[in-house]
């Protein structure tokens, strides 16, 4: 299993703060993203419209980064703190 978190505008549009996804072997961030997009037409649309960053275990990462079972992933819009 992996834990996936969503924040800010993405969280609101998906109406989802967190979900679990079953993976049994390492894959790339982009494979996870593809699987999320296939959840529904709405998810497909939200992910295609929104500019996104992703993080693996609380570090910003690229879509090529390898994901292992037990990891914590997150997707979110470009940050606007400060």
């Amino acid at each position, binding site marked *: 299993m992996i834990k996936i*978190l969503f*924040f*800010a*505008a993405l969280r*609101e549009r998906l109406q989802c703060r967190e979900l679990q996804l079953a993976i049994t072997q390492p894959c790339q961030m982009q494979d996870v993203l593809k699987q999320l997009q296939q959840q529904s037409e709405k998810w497909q649309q939200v992910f295609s419209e929104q*500019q996104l960053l992703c*993080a693996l275990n*609380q*570090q*910003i990462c690229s879509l090529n980064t390898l994901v292992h079972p037990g990891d914590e992933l*997150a997707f*979110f*819009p*470009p*940050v*606007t*703190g*400060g």
Partner: protein
Amino acid sequence: MDKPLIKITVQTEDFSLADEYQLLANTPGCGAVLTFSGLVRDDGSTQLQSLELEHYPGMTEQALTDIALLAVARFKVKAVTLIHRIGTLTPQQQIVLVGVASSHRREAFQAGEFIMDYLKTKAPLWKKQHLATGSDWVDAKHTDAECAKRWDLS
């Protein structure tokens, strides 16, 4: 060189710039103290009622610690304080504080600006503004990405 003093906080409560300044000014061998604070701006035209700050608990603290460590290593400063507020803020309230103590002024200015530029593009914090006419998420600024690039950070 003494071990650099790093203080990182993510909090809903307000902070006292005076207290944080005093702490920095007490750093041994320090000849320069810089503080930068970001406030909720009300430019009069937007009728901003409040600003809501969401963050990624855990990752925010980690990201702020990383940038403080980078600044210390790069600019050889003696102390860094970094406080970011979350939750609901109203115009004129304090959002963020960056404090730096160093031997000389140049490092303090550079470290302070480096930290703010990094924070604006890398720390997982998001602003939603509540106006009289409705609410919306603040868009990331292209200029912030440009500022971060000056330090080879993106």
